[in-house]
C-alpha cells in the first residue's frame, strides 16, 4: 500500500511537469498550428536565468521569479522575431523555423555560457520530505503537484471567463472568423506564447529542482515527452494535453517501480510501445476530436 501511494505521488508530480509543458505546446498549436520544438529551450533559459541570479548571490525565490519571467519573455520574443515573419508561409516552414530557433539557442548556450552542466543548488528546505497522514512526501513533489493544480485552475478560469480567454478558444476553432469579431490576431498569438512561456518556466523550475543542474541540451528530453503527451491526449485539445501528460507519467513511473530489474533498461521503449498501443486503439488521441464532428 505504502509503495502505491508513494508511486502515485511520484507520478502526479512528474505528470504535472509533463502536463504543464504539453499544455504550453498545445496552447501554441491550437492557435497557430505549430508544434514549437524550441519549447524545451524555454526551460533551459529558466535554468540559466536562475543560475545567474544565484551566482549573483540573490535568494532562491528571486531566482525562481526571474527564471519564470525569462521564459515568458523568451517565448514572446521567439514569436515576434522568428515565427511572426513566417506565419503565413505554412506549417512546415514554421516547424523548420522552430528547429532553427532551438539549434541557435543550443549554440548560444554552449558558446556563451558552457557546454558543461552548471550546478543549480536547491535550498535545503526543498530537499526533505514532509510526513502527511503517515506518508513521507517529498517537498519538491508536493510543490510540483500544487503548482500544477494552481496553474491549471488559473488557466481554466482565464479561458472560461475573460474575453481574451474566450477569444483564444475561438481562435483555436476558427482563426479567420475570430478576427472577424475584431480580435487582434497578434494579440491572441502573443498571449498564447506568453502562456506557453509561463508554463514552461514553472515546469523548468520544477524539473531543475529535481536535477540540480542546467546544461544546454536539457530541454530536449522534456519537450519530447511533452510532444508525446500532446499526441497521446489528442492534438489540438488542451485538456487532452494535460491528460496525456499524466498518462505518460503514470506509465513511466509504474514501469520504473514494478518492472523486474532485468527489464529496467527497456522501460522507455516499453513506455513508448504502450503509447503506440493506445494510439492504435484511439488514433485521434484520448480526447482528440474526431473529424466527423459536423
Amino acid at each position: 500500500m505504502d509503495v502505491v501511494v508513494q508511486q502515485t505521488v511520484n507520478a502526479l508530480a512528474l505528470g504535472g511537469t509533463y502536463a504543464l509543458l504539453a499544455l504550453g505546446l498545445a496552447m501554441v498549436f491550437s492557435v497557430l498550428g505549430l508544434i514549437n520544438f524550441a519549447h524545451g529551450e524555454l526551460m533551459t533559459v529558466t535554468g540559466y536565468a536562475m543560475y545567474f541570479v544565484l551566482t549573483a548571490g540573490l535568494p532562491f525565490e528571486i531566482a525562481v521569479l526571474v527564471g519564470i519571467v525569462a521564459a515568458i519573455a523568451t517565448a514572446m520574443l521567439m514569436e515576434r522575431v522568428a515565427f511572426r515573419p513566417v506565419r503565413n508561409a505554412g506549417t512546415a516552414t514554421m516547424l523548420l523555423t522552430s528547429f532553427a530557433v532551438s539549434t541557435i539557442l543550443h549554440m548560444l548556450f554552449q558558446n556563451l555560457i558552457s557546454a558543461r552542466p552548471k550546478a543549480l543548488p536547491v535550498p535545503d528546505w526543498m530537499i526533505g520530505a514532509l510526513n502527511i497522514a503517515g506518508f513521507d512526501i517529498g517537498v519538491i513533489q508536493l510543490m510540483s503537484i500544487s503548482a500544477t493544480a494552481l496553474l491549471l485552475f488559473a488557466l481554466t478560469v482565464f479561458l472560461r471567463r475573460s474575453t481574451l480567454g474566450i477569444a483564444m478558444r475561438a481562435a483555436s476553432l476558427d482563426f479567420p472568423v475570430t478576427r472577424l469579431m475584431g480580435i487582434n490576431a497578434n494579440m491572441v498569438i502573443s498571449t498564447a506564447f506568453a502562456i506557453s512561456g509561463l508554463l514552461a518556466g514553472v515546469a523548468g523550475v520544477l524539473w531543475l529542482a529535481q536535477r540540480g543542474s542546467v546544461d544546454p541540451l536539457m530541454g530536449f528530453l522534456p519537450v519530447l515527452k511533452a510532444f508525446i503527451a500532446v499526441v497521446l491526449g489528442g492534438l489540438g485539445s488542451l485538456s487532452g494535453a494535460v491528460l496525456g501528460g499524466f498518462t505518460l507519467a503514470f506509465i513511466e513511473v509504474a514501469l520504473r517501480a514494478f518492472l523486474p530489474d532485468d527489464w529496467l533498461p527497456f522501460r522507455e521503449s516499453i513506455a513508448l510501445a504502450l503509447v503506440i498501443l493506445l494510439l492504435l486503439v484511439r488514433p485521434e488521441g484520448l480526447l482528440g476530436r474526431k473529424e466527423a464532428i459536423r
Partner: protein
Amino acid sequence: MSNEAALLSVEGLVVRYGAIEAVRGADLSVRQGEIVTLLGANGAGKSSILNAIMGLVPVAGGRVVLEGNDVGGEPPEKIVRRGMTLTPEGRRVFANLTVAENLSIGAATRRDRAEVEATRSDMLELFPILAERRDQLAGTLSGGEQQMLAIARSMMSQPKIVLLDEPSLGLAPQIVDTIFELIVRLRDRGATILLVEQNVELALEIADRGYVLASGAIALEGSARELSASGDVERAYMGAH
C-alpha cells in the same frame, strides 16, 4: 450612382488568387438603411468580393470606401472596429463555445458592459431560441439556429453595415423564410445590409437594390423590382457559363 450618400462603396475592386482573376473591377455601393443584394452563379466571385471588402483576402486593385475612408487592405479586426462586419458563408459559429460565449465574443470590440448587455437582450428578444439555448454548445444547434446565432453574433458589435454571405445555404425552405423575415426585421431596426445570395427570388423580395455578378464583373444592376420584373437576371446567370 450617388456615391457621396453611400455608407459603403466599392470601386473597381480586383481580387486575384495567384494567376486567376476572381473579381475584375467590380463597382457597387450601399446606402444607409438599405438591403442591397449581390447575386450571381456559383463561382461568379460574390464571396471573393465580400472577403476582400472585409480584408480576409487581399485587395489587388480598386478601393473599398467605408464612410469616406479607404479601408482596402486593412486587416479584418481593424475593419470590424470601423463598424463593418461579415456573417460568413456556412455560418461558422464557434462549435465548442456556448451560445452565450459566441455572443460575448461578438462584442469583443466594445468596452461598455451595460451597452453590450442591452444589445445582448435585444438579440435574445429577436432570436428567442438563442435565449433558450444560451448554455448549449453552438455545435449542437440545428443549421437554422446556427445561422441565427451567426447573425446575432455579428450584430453584437453594433455594426453600421453587415455583410451577409449566403444565409440560406443548406437550410430547409421553411427555415430560410424565417431567416429572411429576421433580416427584414434587422433592417427595420436600422441595420444596413449587403446580402449575397443564391436564392435570387427571395433575395430580390427583401432587397431594395441588387447587382448581378458574372465572371467577376457586375453584369447588371438596378432596383430589386426592376431586376425581378425583367428576365435579365436569369440571362445574366446563363451568360456566366
